[in-house]
């Protein structure tokens, strides 16, 4: 994620990370025979959905104004 400058790829990488977390949650939920881990995984997925919706909304708005989706060029707030 650190090495990519395409915001969409960055978002996708976040999804990948969340997914890795989910596997752990579910695996340990199975290990301990309780469904709590699965419930958390569901929350993670809900989170991912929210994050993707807002994130992609921002990307679209940004693309509309600036014609780019490069993180390097998102510097309006830099001093």
């Amino acid at each position: 994620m650190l090495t990519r400058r395409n915001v969409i790829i960055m978002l996708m990488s976040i999804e990948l990370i969340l997914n890795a977390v989910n596997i752990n949650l579910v695996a340990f939920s199975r290990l301990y025979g309780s469904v709590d881990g699965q419930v958390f995984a569901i929350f993670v997925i809900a989170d991912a959905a929210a994050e993707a919706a807002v994130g992609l909304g921002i990307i679209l708005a940004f693309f509309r104004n600036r014609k780019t989706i490069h993180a390097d060029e998102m510097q309006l707030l830099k001093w």
Partner: protein
Amino acid sequence: MVLANVLFYFFALLAVGSAALMITRKNIVHAAVFLVTTLLATAGIFLQLEAEFLFVVQILVYAGGIMVLFVFVIMLVNLDIEVRAVRFNGQWKVAGALAFVLAMQVLTALWLGRKTFHLPAPPTALAARNTEAVADALFSHFMLAFEVASILLLVAMIGAVVMGKRRAE
């Protein structure tokens, strides 16, 4: 159990392999396709872990919903710019070093703690009805969290609509 093992390694390899391919692809659509593959492979692993409900949610929400949104946005923004762009920028050395350090850290921790690291044997049979179990937990113990999550989704929905909406000219 042999079949189960074969399936597990198949899914695991598929997940890891596509994840690696996803972060190295130059073409953003290819990356998205590999991410979908990873997600589906993960869903397969969920199924093996007897989390059927999560297996379906993973496909329905993640692969069928979120990723579709990604692909949709990718097609909305102009792609030609991206194909020409460099894949990695100068920070890859820093990132590589960080990743290496992290990996070493984890390995060391595992090595040092190998004596104390005893996993209990997993229960052989879980509650037969996974969906009901999840629902019970969700609507009793985690009720508050559930409501918060739904508010989060509502806010996200409104946010997405506001961001996606065109300014009236």
